[in-house]
């Protein structure tokens, strides 16, 4: 909030004035009320294992993160440029592979990658869109510097928290909304439905039937799956509700079998079709990939879209953007060392204490080394892993992440945060003004993942 110079930044002025006259006890009480609201509506994420013990609330912080109108405009342009380039890249990589021929990316980085699906070569998804729903993880590292930390092009989650956080804030602090002109995010489900409809297979005789495929109630994001299906008014299906008959995907209803045209799937590629991918999977639908290949169902996001958010590809994204748009990236990447390159590996090994090292295929903050926060022993242990398997790691400098006032145990104080806006790509690009702000609740911590004790905040994009 205090920017990088110490002054309260402009978008936070109204909040700072308001905070100045609040009692800590009042804030704590509001925080407790928020928890009751979340608990009652069952907004939990499941942890694998026992049903009852296995449901947890993600901590919610009642102080919003605020983004000014002109900051958002620039983010919007940058995000749109990025997601168009990612989709152009996906189309190319599964068709003519011009970018490989041009030598912009090492070929084996694609062809040897488990996220690359040879089965998708030559498949034409409707409107050429592979990744319809993308969550772009951003961090602010300076007054005017947002950087992209990661793209999520497979099945990004968290959008239900963006919506429920807003709902809760409007319930608890109506007066704050009257002091700040906050752009609404509530029409996300409607925009999602429009996006899904717009990518239905061609030549349907009726309105497309859309369904959302969930692995089931024990999945960590089950709440989100049911929330989105509910908000869109589409069926929430599990694999056992689906069957392929006569070349079409169908769901089992009270009136018999009904055709499904667009499947928003929240299961991973590997589990989608046991006949093509993992044969032991019970989460998918035998034969669905054939239906997809024949153009009679749209799968969102497309199988194989994960190659675009692979951490090994990440450092090439600026080159990808230039290759497909002819322009330099509006939003920069965080500087990244690919340990598969000998010169990078050498640098990383010499600077481990200053760097963050991540597994290429890891997620959720596991399997990483945060150099400045680690002991000598931890660094040496990691060094051994790195030398043993360098292609498995990338490294980035630790960033001067921005902070935002957060209600901690004893006071309101600054905590580090990131931002995941959600963008929809169908017949057009639709971006909600906001996103999911994740906040590290421990003082000084840079790890914001919910699985590592991070929390969330409402994200306000101000009206001009």
């Amino acid at each position, binding site marked *: 909030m205090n920017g990088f110079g110490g002054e309260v930044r402009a978008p936070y002025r109204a909040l700072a004035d308001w905070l100045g006259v609040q009692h800590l006890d009042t804030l704590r009480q509001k925080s407790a009320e928020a928890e009751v609201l979340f608990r009652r*509506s*069952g907004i939990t994420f499941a942890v694998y294992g026992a049903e009852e013990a296995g449901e947890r609330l993600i901590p919610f912080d009642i102080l919003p993160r605020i983004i000014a109108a002109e900051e958002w405009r620039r983010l919007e342009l940058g995000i749109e440029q990025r997601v168009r380039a990612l989709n152009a890249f996906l189309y190319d990589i599964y068709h003519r592979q011009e970018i490989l021929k041009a030598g912009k990316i090492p070929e084996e980085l694609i062809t040897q990658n488990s996220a690359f699906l040879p089965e998708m070569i030559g498949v034409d998804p409707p409107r050429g869109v592979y990744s319809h729903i993308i969550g772009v993880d951003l961090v602010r590292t300076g007054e005017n510097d947002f950087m992209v930390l990661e793209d999520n092009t497979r099945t990004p989650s968290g959008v239900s928290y963006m919506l429920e956080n807003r709902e809760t804030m409007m319930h608890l602090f109506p007066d704050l909304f009257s002091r700040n002109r906050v752009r609404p995010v509530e029409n996300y489900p409607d925009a999602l439905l429009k996006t899904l409809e717009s990518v239905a297979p061609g030549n349907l005789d009726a309105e497309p039937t859309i369904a959302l495929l969930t692995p089931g109630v024990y999945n960590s994001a089950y709440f989100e799956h049911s929330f989105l299906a509910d908000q869109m008014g589409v069926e929430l299906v599990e694999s056992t509700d689906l069957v392929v008959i006569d070349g079409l995907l169908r769901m089992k209803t009270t009136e018999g079998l009904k055709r499904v045209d667009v499947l928003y799937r929240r299961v991973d590629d590997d589990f989608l079709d046991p006949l093509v991918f993992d044969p032991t999977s019970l989460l998918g639908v035998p034969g669905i990939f054939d239906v997809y290949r024949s153009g009679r169902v749209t799968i969102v996001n497309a199988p194989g879209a994960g190659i675009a958010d692979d951490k090994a590809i990440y450092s090439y994204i600026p080159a990808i953007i230039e290759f497909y748009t002819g322009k330099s990236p509006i939003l920069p990447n965080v500087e990244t060392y690919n340990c598969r390159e000998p010169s990078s590996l050498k640098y990383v090994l010499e600077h481990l204490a200053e760097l963050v090292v991540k597994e290429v295929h890891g997620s959720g903050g596991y399997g990483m080394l945060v150099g400045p926060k680690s002991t000598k022993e931890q660094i040496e242990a990691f060094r051994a892993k790195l030398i043993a398997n360098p292609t498995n790691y990338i490294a980035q400098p630790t960033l001067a992440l921005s902070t935002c006032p957060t209600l901690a145990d004893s006071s309101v104080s600054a905590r580090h945060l990131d931002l995941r806006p959600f963008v929809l790509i169908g017949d057009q690009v639709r971006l909600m003004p906001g996103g999911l702000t994740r906040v590290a609740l421990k003082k000084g911590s840079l790890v914001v993942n919910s699985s590592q004790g991070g929390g969330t905040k409402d994200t306000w994009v101000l009206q001009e």
Partner: protein
Amino acid sequence: MLGRTANDLYWLSRYIERAENIARLLEVGYRIVLLPREGESFHEEWRSTLESAGCLQGYVQRHGELMSQNVIDYMLFDTSNPSSIASCLASARRNGRAQRTALTREMWESLNSAWLEFSAIRPATVTSNSLPELLDWVRSRSALYRGALLNTILRNDTYYFSQVGTFIERADSTARILDVKYYHLLPSSEMVGSEKDNYQWAALLRSVSAHRSYRWVFKDHYRPLKIADFMILNRQMPRSLRSCYDELTAALRDLAVFYGIRHDCQTTAEATRDLLLEADMRNIFQSGLHEFVQDFIGRNNKLGNEISAAYHFSD
């Protein structure tokens, strides 16, 4: 609607209704145990309570001898008992969670908070003094859920399948109470008019919340024939078999209209409803109340199976 969704909605309603019925039965059993006794034990009363709830066999396997505290614990908290209130609330909540998209926010929140609050109770803290309050709570949570359903849900298949589940379960429960209780009460008919006898007849009616409405309708003393008539054939009494079947045939007719197709289950339900419409209580008594009720329970089960098949509950 998915067949799985219809199945879960149907069972969700059944579990909520069952939790309420178990609470009613326990309340009656408990009140009778409070009666002054002359040398005889209250075993018979707990036995009939467990039998009405369909829990007797399970209880005996687990605890053997009939003891008040064990019976109460088994019917309230024991998750190895699929009909305990804890199990009913957990199953209802599990079905509701799987069908979160089919429920309104009010329905889900009443379900979820009932489960959360009940899960927080430590069985050891439930004394005989606090039991009536807890049973009241169970009934009020069931009423709250049902109120949320009636007030907020669209009148479409979601509503109709919920209604069907509620009234199949209620019909089953009323029939079982009648069968078991009546069987146990008959031997005492030579002492009709005694204080204890009246108390037990009142308890039978109380278990279906009808001990006062009986008087409003009949303006008479409790008499076996009239009580049976009230619980089986009276269309004003909302827990009578007749009322349940009025609701069931209406919900099934609405389903047939909604989907534009009639199934065998509609015919089966109407046949049972017509039977209740035309029956005469004296004839039923003459040919045997127990046989009549057993036949009814069989028909009710068959209807449940036909509905499940017609609407593809599990394919």
